[in-house]
């Protein structure tokens, strides 16, 4: 029997049992949909982070402490910052940074968050958005002005619908005037959760909250640096490393690290890749379940259609013809299920994309994989029921009621 005739017979058999055909596909539809969606989310997440980093700029270099518990460790200090500013030629801007957990109180409400000691240079470098009010100035840093810029979430918890700017809050029991509200900027791996931040002039934080006095100056958490427009990040990294080794008299291992946004991006990408693979793999398990579902229902279908199969054999259908018919049915069901699943995955990806900042990205390879796998699943799980059908004894089959 020619192929297209076999396919016609299978199609009409599937169409005759529309509801059951659809139910048979269901497992596979969900499985394929899940794979498409999960991979799309994974890829979308990678893209999301990449875009966030783009806004940070790839010309920012971060200097931090490393190996605090080692002998001979020296923390980063304000003196280091001053030295970097004057002695590293490729750096255009420098921003010292220190942070500590703290608590803010306003009237009867209190909220915990993170105190940041920073300078306007950091605000410029990382481009903090001002939702309300303003950031403090260089002058206010020098005058140790008791002002604070709150993260949006923390501000909301304290003030609710009330206007926060101009109010006086207690930060760790010390009164500070709220001058502005900011929000989480793009992924800033080194900063932490800015939404719950209390940003104050670094001088104030050093004076009132973190003593940090060392023989080498006031302790710092991080030092952010921006490369000059004509200088590369590599140059800055090299110069900073050199200077810091000198200043900290490093003989063996460095007690600091120099990070770039590119490094963070790379790290994140490798994590995201593993996560995407993991998500895809989990979803792929549901494909196997979908395949077993196909096999189950095909077996039921063979039992139910015993009489039909017997009749076809009595009328001259050979074992190969019956085998072919049932395998084609299984493969058609799977491929159709794959296509529906694809539509489901694409649809869900669209919906998620419309309601969240994360835009799932459906990749071509995941589509081919889904369609290929579904066809393969149908073939693999269709063979067993089809063989059972082909081997039915026509006498017994015709006798069944």
């Amino acid at each position, binding site marked *: *029997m*020619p192929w297209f*005739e076999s396919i016609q*017979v299978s199609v*009409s058999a599937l169409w*005759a049992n529309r509801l059951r055909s659809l139910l048979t596909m269901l497992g596979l539809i969900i499985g394929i949909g899940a794979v498409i969606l999960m991979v799309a989310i994974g890829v979308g997440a990678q893209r999301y982070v990449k875009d966030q980093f783009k806004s940070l700029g790839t010309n920012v270099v971060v200097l931090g402490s490393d190996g605090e518990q080692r002998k001979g460790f020296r923390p980063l200090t304000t003196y280091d910052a001053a030295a970097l500013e004057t002695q590293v030629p490729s750096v255009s801007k420098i921003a010292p940074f220190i942070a500590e957990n703290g608590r803010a109180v306003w009237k009867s409400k209190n909220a915990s968050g993170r105190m940041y000691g920073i300078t306007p240079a950091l605000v410029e470098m990382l481009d903090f958005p001002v939702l309300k009010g303003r950031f403090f100035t260089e002058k206010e840093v020098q005058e140790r002005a008791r002002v604070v810029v709150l993260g949006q979430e923390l501000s909301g918890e304290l003030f609710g619908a009330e206007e926060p700017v101009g109010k006086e809050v207690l930060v760790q029991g010390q009164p500070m005037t709220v001058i502005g509200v900011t929000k989480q900027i793009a992924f800033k791996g080194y900063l932490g959760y800015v939404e719950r931040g209390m940003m104050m002039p670094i001088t104030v934080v050093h004076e009132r909250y973190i003593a940090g006095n060392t023989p080498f100056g006031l302790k710092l958490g991080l030092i952010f640096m921006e490369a000059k427009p004509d200088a590369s990040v590599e140059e800055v990294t090299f110069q900073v490393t050199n200077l810091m080794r000198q200043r900290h008299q490093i003989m063996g291992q460095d007690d600091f690290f120099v990070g770039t946004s590119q490094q963070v991006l790379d790290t994140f990408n490798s994590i995201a890749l593993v996560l995407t693979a993991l998500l895809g793999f989990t979803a792929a398990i549901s494909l196997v379940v979908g395949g077993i579902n196909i096999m189950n229902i095909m077996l039921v279908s063979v039992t139910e259609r015993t*009489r*039909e199969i017997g*009749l*076809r*054999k*009595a*009328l*001259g*259908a*050979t*074992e*190969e*013809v019956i085998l072919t018919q049932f395998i084609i049915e299984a493969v058609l069901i799977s491929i159709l299920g794959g296509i529906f699943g694809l539509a489901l995955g694409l649809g869900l990806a669209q919906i998620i994309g419309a309601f969240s900042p994360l835009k799932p990205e459906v990749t071509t390879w995941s589509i081919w994989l889904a369609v290929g796998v579904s066809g393969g699943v149908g073939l693999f799980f269709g063979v067993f029921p089809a063989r059972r059908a082909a081997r039915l004894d*026509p*006498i017994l089959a*015709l006798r069944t009621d």
Partner: protein
Amino acid sequence: MVIRLEEIRKIYRLNQTDVPILKGIDLTIDKGEYVAIMGPSGSGKSTLMNIIGCLDQPTSGSYWLNNYNVATMERKFLAQVRNRQIGFIFQQFNLLPRADALENVALPALYAGLGSKERKQRATAMLERVGLGDRLHNLPSQLSGGQQQRVAIARALINQPSILLADEPTGALDTRTGQEVLNLFEELNQEGLTLVVITHDQEVGDRAHRIVRLRDGMLETDLQAVLV
């Protein structure tokens, strides 16, 4: 000679004991004969029909169908023999419920490898032959029992078989429609078709020109009717 059965034996193994169903049947049927095979249940007539219809093979003996020894044929070729040489008619009609009359009749032609145009042509001609030319696209559920059996007869005839093999063809029909089917059989036989009818109904048997009686797996009588 269309059918020649020689020393046909069929033994089933049941719980490690051999149960002989057919105990050496010798039977020849010539072209154009109209034979009824009769016998009480358990006489082996169903087994004999399955063997004649190439649905089953004998344990020993030989079966010549149109000078081919089908007793030793491979299953793959048996399917072809069923397709080309034998037209089956069942008690329960056995039509595909979701296919219309035309598609049901055309099914054996599909397995014979005919093109779709020729299948349709032949199936239409067959349905016209059995008087259902105006029911081509009815589903079996839209046809009466007698009409369904006539569709089944058209299906049995489409590949121009050597014999028409009917198993209790009127068993599911009332007397009047049963007579109609038997009238059709007679017409076909007059046109030269060889007919073998398996039945336990004496009235059905009496319409045939020869009655072969089975009892306990053996031929009891073989009576040629006297044509008046």
